[in-house]
């Protein structure tokens, strides 16, 4: 596994869907934050992050995701995660991310929950 994280984004109406592939550390977190802020600036009202190809998240990555979450909340938007490994799921719950961001098992469930249009 590479220590670099690839992030791809696709817009579904006013919902931005993110796919990560790799380690969410400082580099991966910054990459996600950059794309997330850009989507918020473009008016996204919901961000759905599919992490099914991510097996590792460290505390730097989490702190950046928390910053993203704070920004999302400032903009009155919503953030949802899906495709988490059990370890990452538990990590997000302990670190408080799950307090303000919803976690769904699958991308479809997340998209349905945030009301994404096709």
């Amino acid at each position: 596994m590479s220590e670099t994280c690839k992030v791809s984004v696709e817009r579904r109406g006013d919902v931005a869907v993110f796919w990560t592939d790799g380690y969410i550390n400082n580099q991966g977190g910054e990459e996600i934050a950059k794309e997330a802020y850009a989507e918020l600036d473009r008016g996204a009202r919901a961000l759905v992050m599919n992490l099914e190809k991510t097996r590792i998240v460290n505390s730097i990555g989490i702190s950046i995701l928390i910053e993203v979450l704070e920004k999302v909340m400032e903009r009155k938007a919503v953030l949802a995660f899906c495709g988490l490994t059990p370890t990452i799921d538990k990590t997000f719950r302990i670190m408080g991310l799950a307090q303000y961001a919803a976690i769904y098992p699958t991308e479809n469930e997340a998209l349905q929950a945030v009301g994404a249009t096709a």
Partner: protein
Amino acid sequence: MPSSPTRSGAVSEDALRAPGSVSGLARALAALKRETDKPLPVRIAEAALAAVGARRAAVYLRDGDRWLLGFDSGKEGVPIEPPKALLENVVSDGGRLWVPLDAEGETHGCLALEGVEHEEPEELAAALGWIFGSVLAASRLSRLVKDAEFEIKARLLELESLYDLGLSLSGQLDISALADEVLYRSISLTDARKGTLIVFGERGAGPLVRSVGGDLLPAHALWSWELPEGEAVINNDAARVPTAGVQLSDCSKCLAVSIAVPGRRLGVLAVADKESRDGRVLDFTPGDARLLSLFANQASAAIETTRLHREAIEKERIERELELAAAIQRQLLPRELPHTPGFELAGSTLPTRQVGGDYFDWFPLSDGRLGFVVADVSGKGIPAALLVSTVHAAIHLQIDASETIVDLVSRIDRHLQRFSPAHKFLTLFFGLLETGGDLVRYVSAGHNPALIARSGGVIDRLSATGVPLGLLPRGSWREETAPLHKGDLLCVYTDGFTEATNGDDEEFGLERLEQGVRSRRTLPTRQISDALYGEVASFAAGIPQYDDQTLLIIKREA
């Protein structure tokens, strides 16, 4: 242009915009509160510019006894210099003001201003310093609280991870998945950028290597990395200094630990380059080392358990296969006694393992004669059993085509020379009872001397008439005959009988066997056989024996 009236109608807009006006100050502070998208030093500088009408403002943040530039409103060029030391009061020098940002007796930062238009800039600046200092202090306190909360959660996550890892590994029998789990958690919880976990292979198998961000350990050092047992090694200068004697690949700081059970290394776990939020690589700490050691301990227990479990499964599989092999080998033994008027027979074999290297058989021939054989293959267990199968097949295939016993034995020898592995041989006694005659013909290929107990009690030994089969490229054998009168008893056996040992390492020996045969020669052959097996067992007194025991008894009825 005349000023338009304000809502109150009392103060003009120009007056409100004037540096130091109450409303201007209020607006500046409102912007400070509102524009949270901007970093706090930017907002403080912009509020200061609006409040005092300066051309340029810079905000320095205190970091111990240093100043860190937070923001300078100057678009380019050299930033406004920070003060030389911590300030107690506003300092004015050459058109510049340095304002301490204080709160509750502590300096949190400094505001530097250029081109202030206010008439009493120092007094206004002092007031702003107190306001901005309080904002800065509140922000720093808020961040400290957040950081502390994050730290507590991170410690909780470590504890939970250790607990979860223990649970997860206890049910994990796939070493590869186990290695991933340990490596990912180790990297994640130490904030390392990369890591490698190596589990050494057993019984000649190659090592299992799992890495994130490239292999840390060069291939030549996979087996030789001698890390101390029980504690992790911190090397915060890994780019220049070898770690436990090995120069690691492409990392600047490293933390490594041996995965071991007492007296045996199972693998190594190493992580490298601990990240910080600002992109620097931090030193690994004793806390990181303790955490990695705990992971390594859990990994070693899980790997060992997995291996033991696998070995148990493998052992069970081998046991099942041996049971099957034993059943197959039992099929090679004669299942019923041949019809031999005037003779009484008994034959049996007792392998020391599930399968053995001894073999006996008899062959009623079409002309009424009876052939019989006792063989003992060198070695034990499965290899010996496979050779027994080969000999069994060879005898059954060649017996009808052979004109004499020597011819048969020679054919078996050639078969073995061709098809059996080198250094494998067997001793064999092949006999032929003549119909109604007083004669036994035989070839003994290096076999223990068969015994004939005469009806009068005398014992004759039938010595070897050639070399063992499969031993020499051109062996030769000769056929001998021995009289077998009414009441005489022929006993053919393997060396598991005579070489059975007791607790004093004493062998049962040929003399005891001869005595046993002599004293029971008048009994039915089955009884003689059972009694001889029993006598050897009593002699051994529970000491495990290492050689199969086989006995064939033929008695000419009186």
